[in-house]
């Protein structure tokens, strides 16, 4: 049972990881020669553009996968063949990240378009034609932004967890934790809230669905991980599905919210999280009610009422109410699975 859950989880992470490191399957990134506009490159690099570019071909395959693991935007030097020390090299991917990050500040004005990317490239000293590296509908910009937000959220949750571990902060109850995490993540959208509906529509394009879906699921997974979820059964899926539903609906409410400071949205979020909590509490209640109804029905069938007519009426009445309770009974029985009976669970009420 635990092994199956572990396997499922490993499969989930593998699927996620495949999307995240898909760039490794691309042809190896060639090290970029630093031009004066990008970095203050030493003069000897500029004077030999041709000879060193062919040597870069040799440099990059062994070191090509390194840039992906390095933190974004840092320099790194690696020695190529012939002992040529090349500093200030960055891969194409890193340069693209830098351009996209610079483009984010122009999004409120231009929207998630190639124009914003062109303006971003201009601030880095590149020509506006560099925006041609990306798709003209701005999908890469949006995906970049979403993954940056997810990274920020993870760092935030990690920091909080450290504080709890060090004993400097109290461990939050589960509903408060979820609410705060989703609120923190949604607050990152506030500077771009006007153009965010456009971004959502672009993320739903068939071309972008795999990447956007994987980013969403990895974020939800992260939140549950820091919430302390260690479930290994069907619970795991249900929890993530419920939180995804909460996140998506709150995001949509936020799009249309015009209250000061988005109060309505946070209230909505709190209500949804509370609903989710109550749902699992009601699950056990419904189950016991269902059992009582079944017993009542059995009893009605066995009991001997005084009159034929009232007996028929009574049986019809119980039948109808039984039918009415039947879907609720089924629902309750399925919810019973959510209410985990695993002793290792330390999550109360969910």
């Amino acid at each position, binding site marked *: 049972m635990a092994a199956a859950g572990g396997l499922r989880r490993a499969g989930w992470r593998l699927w996620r990881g495949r999307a995240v490191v898909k760039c490794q399957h691309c042809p190896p990134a060639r090290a*970029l020669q630093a031009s004066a*506009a990008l970095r203050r490159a030493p003069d000897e690099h500029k004077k030999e*553009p041709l000879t060193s*570019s062919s040597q870069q071909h040799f440099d990059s395959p062994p070191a090509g996968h390194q840039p992906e693991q390095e933190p974004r935007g840092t320099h790194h030097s690696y020695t190529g063949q012939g002992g040529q020390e090349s500093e200030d090299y960055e891969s194409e991917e890193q340069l693209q990240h830098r351009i996209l990050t610079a483009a984010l500040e122009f999004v409120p004005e231009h929207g998630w378009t*190639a124009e914003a990317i062109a303006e971003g490239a201009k601030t880095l000293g*590149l*020509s506006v*034609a*560099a925006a041609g590296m990306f798709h*003209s509908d701005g999908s890469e910009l949006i995906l970049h932004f979403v993954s940056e937000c997810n990274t920020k959220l993870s760092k935030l949750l990690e920091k909080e967890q450290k504080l709890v571990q060090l004993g400097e902060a109290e461990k939050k109850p589960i509903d408060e934790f979820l609410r705060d995490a989703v609120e923190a993540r949604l607050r990152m959208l506030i500077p771009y809230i006007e153009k965010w509906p456009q971004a959502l529509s672009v993320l739903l394009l068939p071309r972008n669905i795999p990447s956007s879906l994987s980013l969403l699921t990895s974020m939800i997974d992260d939140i549950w991980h820091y919430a302390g979820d260690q479930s290994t059964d069907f619970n795991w899926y249900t929890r993530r599905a419920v939180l995804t539903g909460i996140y998506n609906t709150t995001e949509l409410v936020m799009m249309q919210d015009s209250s000061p400071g988005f109060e309505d949205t946070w209230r909505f979020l709190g209500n949804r999280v509370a609903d989710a909590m109550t749902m699992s509490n009601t699950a056990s209640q419904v189950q016991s009610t269902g059992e009582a109804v079944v017993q009542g029905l059995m009893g009605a069938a066995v009991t001997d009422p005084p009159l034929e007519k009232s007996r028929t009426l009574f049986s019809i009445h119980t039948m109808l109410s039984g039918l009415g309770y039947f879907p609720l009974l089924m629902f309750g029985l399925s919810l019973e699975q959510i209410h985990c009976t695993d002793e290792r669970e330390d999550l109360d009420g969910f």
Partner: protein
Amino acid sequence: MAAGLSLSLWLWRSRCRALLSRPAGAVRAHRGLAAGPEMHFGFQSVTEEERREKIYQVFENVAKKYDVMNDSMTLGIHRVWKDILMHKMNPCPGTLLLDVAGGTGDIAFRFINYVRSVRQRQLQRKLKHHQNLSWQEIFDSYQKDQFNSLGDSQVVVCDINREMLKVGKQKAQHLGYSEGLSWVLGNAEELPFDDDKFDVYTIAFGIRNVTRIDLALQEAYRVLKPGGRFLCLEFSHVSNPLLSRLYDLYSFQVIPVLGEVIAGDWRSYQYLVESIRQFPPQEELKAMIEDAGFFKVDYENLNFGIVAIHSGFKL
């Protein structure tokens, strides 16, 4: 006349067959890069100097009928190819374009149209946000933008052939393109421009005629700004065997005949179709562009490889 024509057709057809049956190695030696003074001019082998002269002559002869011939040879599809190139470029206002070997100005005019429409949309969007401004402010901004319908974009058309430039200038006057356009006489292997000047460098159906392609690519790298884009639209290699046969049939049987009938010059159009066969295929050209120092080099086949757009960035 008809007999002479059919005789000459038969003669070059048999010569083509003889040349095509040459061993592959010799043919490959005639591609792009100069392997010694021997170069290819169509299926002939000539020296570099001869080749330059011959090509100059070819375009001098065809300059006046260049556009008509383009339309008839490609059945008008060349317009679609050039439009696709423009969409791929997706220029925003403020772009500086260098169109090399752009003699009659097709790419330049399309660029101006595109930038103008993008600029219009920009201005409309700005006006929509001007709801809260006073009338005076709106009037002022409108005045300022009205005189800037291109948004500071400029295109420089560079060609080695004076005749082609003349035809281009006449066309511009005729169609009413005046601002944002300049015409420069220059050699693609030795451009008369400073370093790091242009945002985009295009060469549409011209790089085939350059004698030293590697030099042209190096010059392209030189004049582009960091982040600038290199775009090359050119006839290329068709890999589908059935289509390739049909294409060969059409090229060698129909096009020179059209050349004779419309432009009165079958030799030039024979050179044209031969030079297409001699041009390096997509992957080879991609490697050459990478050698010149460009990054993110990629190509897109149009019409199954009849035409390919190569794109690279100076990063």
